[in-house]
């Protein structure tokens, strides 16, 4: 099994073509095994704890606009992953236009989110501080608005999404679009490196997306998922999982 695919360029010189798609299966299998192990572990060993009630007073967790952003982003990422993978796994759909349109949507919502987060949202609530790292090891430490895992997932996604966007936009300039014709490629090796980065980031993104979806579906975390749909969590859920002193909910 290869990690990187190599091909000869127009002059017979060996250049990087991209990431080996064998890794797609490695990622898929690894993610599945890890998550399955986690599920089994949680089912077998985790102590049964009563779930906090979702009734009662509601605390606003996500504004509608942020929820919309999340789901647009989720939709575009899933679309990108599906359309990007389909030709690799042999699904015959006319994927390319959907792929770059979804990519552009993702780019715009990420830009929107970044600006909004920087100026209109409580940006600090997503920053990872030294205290956050105590969380996993000390049950008494409760997080503010976002848990350590959530912040970790957010920042991992941030890095990966920016990576796929940056490399994806570069690759986008190499195909015909309504705004330009594809250019000549002076250095196929450089192009290959962009494909390699795009592919590698995609593989990681797939892994993290799988993890993210897994946790979103886990029973003890499902209220977060609900909050991403409805915007609120219950006060009980908040108290159980968060430190109100650190999360000044409106």
């Amino acid at each position, binding site marked *: 099994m290869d990690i990187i695919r190599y091909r000869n360029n127009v002059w017979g010189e060996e250049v990087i073509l991209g990431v080996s798609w064998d890794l797609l299966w490695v990622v898929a299998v690894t993610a599945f095994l890890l998550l399955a192990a986690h599920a089994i572990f949680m089912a077998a060993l985790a102590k049964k704890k009563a779930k906090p009630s979702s009734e009662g007073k509601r605390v606003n967790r996500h504004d509608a606009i942020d929820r919309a952003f999340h789901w647009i982003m989720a939709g575009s990422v899933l679309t990108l992953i599906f359309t990007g993978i389909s030709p690799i796994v*042999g699904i015959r759909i006319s*994927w*390319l236009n959907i792929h770059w349109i979804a990519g552009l949507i993702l780019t715009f919502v990420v830009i929107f989110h970044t600006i909004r987060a920087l100026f209109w949202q409580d940006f600090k609530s997503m920053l990872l501080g030294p205290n956050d790292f105590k969380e996993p090891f000390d049950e008494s430490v409760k997080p503010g608005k976002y848990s350590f895992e959530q912040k970790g997932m957010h920042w991992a996604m941030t890095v990966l999404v920016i990576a796929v966007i940056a490399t994806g936009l570069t690759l986008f300039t190499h195909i*015909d679009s309504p705004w330009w014709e594809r250019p000549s490629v002076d250095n196929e090796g450089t192009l290959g490196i962009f494909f390699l980065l795009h592919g590698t980031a995609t593989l990681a993104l797939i892994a993290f997306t799988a993890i993210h979806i897994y946790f979103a579906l886990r029973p003890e975390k499902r209220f977060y998922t609900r909050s991403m749909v409805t915007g609120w969590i219950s006060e009980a859920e908040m108290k159980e999982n968060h430190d109100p002193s650190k999360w000044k909910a409106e």
Partner: protein
Amino acid sequence: MSSHDNMPEMSLYQPVQVEDAIGIATELAGRGWLVGGGQDTYGWLKDRAKTADALIDLKGIESMRGIKETADGIEIGALVTLTEITRDPIIKERYSLLAQAAGRVASPQIRNVGTLAGNVSQDVRCWYYRRGLNCYRAGGNLCYADTPEGMNREHAIFNASRCVAVTPSDTGPALVALEAQMVIQNASGQRVVPAEDFFIGPNLDIRHTTILRPGDILTAVRIPAKWANATFYFEKVADRNAWDFALVSISAAMRVNNGVIEDSRIMVGAVQATPRRLTSVEQAIRGKPRNESTANSLGNLASSDANPLNYNHFKMPLMDNLVKRAVRGQA
């Protein structure tokens, strides 16, 4: 860069039953190569531009030979040669469009061994791709033809999706015009696919020109009676009148009653990766008399949404002209 003249070492299977052939093809999957007439096989292999472990020579399979009448038209075995098609009395009488198209393929010797299945399954002729370069179609990251200075006189003016190669087949457009059905067998059975869906463009699969997958064998082509004895027009314009692939070809089937076009199927070859159906033209001529004035009224309808490259603008007027000739019925 090595230039070769010898075939690479490989094994050869010569099954006589289609089931055996399917078994071998399925087992070898991507490493097996189906051979009918072989006229688009040996060049690839000699050039080392494509490789395979084994050739599966289908010519010994009797069930894939012959042309027979069916309840609704005819069935042409996949191994029927292009020469046989040009000489078959039924095809000449009822489906002369196909006979004409087959008769314009390559050269007599190639038509003598080249099969109908091979003609529709052949790979594209983009010269960059044929050189063995690692372009999109070969699994690479780019197209050498669609660039600011690419030499793309023969390439696509429609529906390019990264790859700008065109379908080289002369019989493909004719078969779509006749609403032929492609009979495909594989390990899980037989399926019948309209010719129109048999050809696929690079947007769907940049590495293949047909829906055939490893293990699939195109065993026969059925032509329904629908267009039997219709009014046909075929013309192929190529640089040289032997060997060369079409710059543009046209295959038209029309139902003309009292000089009025009641229905038609107008197909153009060599303008995109698949045979291109001109539905706008079909609609425009429906119910119109088949004459010069109807032809001229089309203007550049056929090519109006073309997207030419550096050197292939000529395909636009050429296809418009061929459409006019088909509609008015004379060169």
